[in-house]
């Protein structure tokens, strides 16, 4: 039998090492989960390829690929920050993982930081793949991708808030169902592949207040129309971030 020195030698690891370890575990969990890969990579790429090649949607004057790429980027952000994170966190709560981690030196703030880093890392991977496919399909962005960064970050924050709000309150199964439902609804009426202009005027102005519409709208303004910072969409995303993260912080149950 192997000798083990069980003599007490307690102590927490440095915060950086704890967060890096947890973020690595979160990234592995996301990339290993087949359903989540379907949601984060396969569906966005299929939509991008399918709708850019087939004339299914009237996008007005623009080239289809130039219209679709910002929408699919927004969809990718939503799938990871909202759908994937909500479902994963809901089940972590259900399986007692959040509770167990709460008994380690990794603080709740550290855990949330690790989750955020993991989401950003997976989003980076999604962006590289989607931009690669889009360029191969002839995408010509009208503005710099750097100009899209504020939208991507604020969109991530808003969708994370929404995901954590859902995961912290609903049962895991309800989160699974609701997160997928919301994903589908927002995919349909958030301007991802169909422009919001297909809806009647009154409906359109309401839909513009959805976080997905603000994200697709902002990304199109920068990447398709070559505008500088469009502040309207940023304001909508900021409002969603404040409200959802604020509510999540008040209502989140760790157990």
């Amino acid at each position, binding site marked *: 039998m192997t000798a083990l020195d069980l003599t007490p030698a307690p102590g927490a690891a440095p915060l950086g090492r704890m967060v890096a370890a947890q973020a690595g575990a979160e990234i592995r969990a996301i990339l290993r989960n087949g359903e989540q890969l379907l949601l984060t990579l396969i569906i966005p790429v299929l939509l991008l390829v399918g709708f850019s090649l087939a004339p299914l949607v009237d996008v007005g004057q623009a080239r289809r690929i130039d219209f679709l790429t910002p929408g699919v980027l927004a969809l990718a952000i939503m799938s990871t920050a909202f759908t994937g994170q909500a479902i994963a966190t809901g089940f972590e709560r259900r399986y007692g993982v959040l509770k*167990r981690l709460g008994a380690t030196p990794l603080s709740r703030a550290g855990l949330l930081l690790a989750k955020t880093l993991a989401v950003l890392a997976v989003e980076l991977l999604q962006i590289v793949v989607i931009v690669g496919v889009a360029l191969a399909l002839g995408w010509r962005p009208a503005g710099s991708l750097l100009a899209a960064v504020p939208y991507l970050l604020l969109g991530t924050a808003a969708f994370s808030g929404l995901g954590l709000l859902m995961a912290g309150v609903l049962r895991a199964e309800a989160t699974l169902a609701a997160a997928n439902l919301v994903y589908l609804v927002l995919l349909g009426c958030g301007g991802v592949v169909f422009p919001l202009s297909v809806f009647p005027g009154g409906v359109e102005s309401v839909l513009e207040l959805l976080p997905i519409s603000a994200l697709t709208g902002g990304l199109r303004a920068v990447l398709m129309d070559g505008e500088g910072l469009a502040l309207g969409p940023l304001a909508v995303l900021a409002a969603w971030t404040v409200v959802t993260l604020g509510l999540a912080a008040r209502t989140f149950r760790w157990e």
Partner: protein
Amino acid sequence: MDSPAVEVIDLVKRYGGATAVDGLTLSAARGAVTAILGPNGAGKTSTIEICEGFREADGGTVRVLGLPPSDGSLRARVGVMLQAGGVPPAVRCGEWLRLVSRFYARPLAPDALMARLGLTDHARTPYRRLSGGQQQRLSLAAAVIGRPELVFLDEPTAGLDPQARHACWDLVADLRTAGVGVVLTTHHMDEAERLADHVVIIDRGRVVAEGSPASLTGAERQLRFRARPGLALEELLTALPTGSAAKESPAGHYIIEGQVDPELLATVTAWCAAEGVTADDLSIERRTLEDVFLELTGRELR
């Protein structure tokens, strides 16, 4: 460093209208094994989870290593094994242990710990494919990997096969030797008798007895038998040597304590014969914690 490992005073915990812990007081020494023994629903898990900082008490005082359970500095000093779960189903056994080890400054080597607990062959097995016993051992490993000075084990051997139970017992014994305090809950009296320096027997959220296993069970042997309830034991006592004791607990179960020798046995059986009753299941044995519990509460431990 003079404070006990765990000090619980007048603890109260309610869930809605139901009182799970009802004025419970106990103390666990540093570097010793303390077993909280009681039937399901006695308040064991509520008590230990309040000590672990997972639940809020509704009344009373709890100190762990001299600090309130919510104190963040305890997370690095205290190891925790939940009653069940706590591990993502898809994560591999070795991966989980390596992850948890990286939260601590001077952790045990995950591979050595897995070898010690017989998990080496399952290092690459996802948690959901591990047997119940392997899952329990992984949770135990995660509780000790940070080299804590105190560990809480909530029903560490529930549902384990005998081999896994012994692996767990051996590790608890080694923790004690190394100076780690252990507080565990159990409803196995043999586990408490075998492992614990101090046993706290609880029932319905209250302490009904506590002490070392030997002090609780007593060194003396006893004669036990079953017969119809309501025998006149006072009469029997007059025939027994002074210092003997006789009681009926629960109804129909008789216990004779004292100098249990052939003469005493003969006296008891002769008296039964004179009373016209047959003494069933007559036996001479040392008391167990199970007997203590039965006598104190009139109910079986399980």
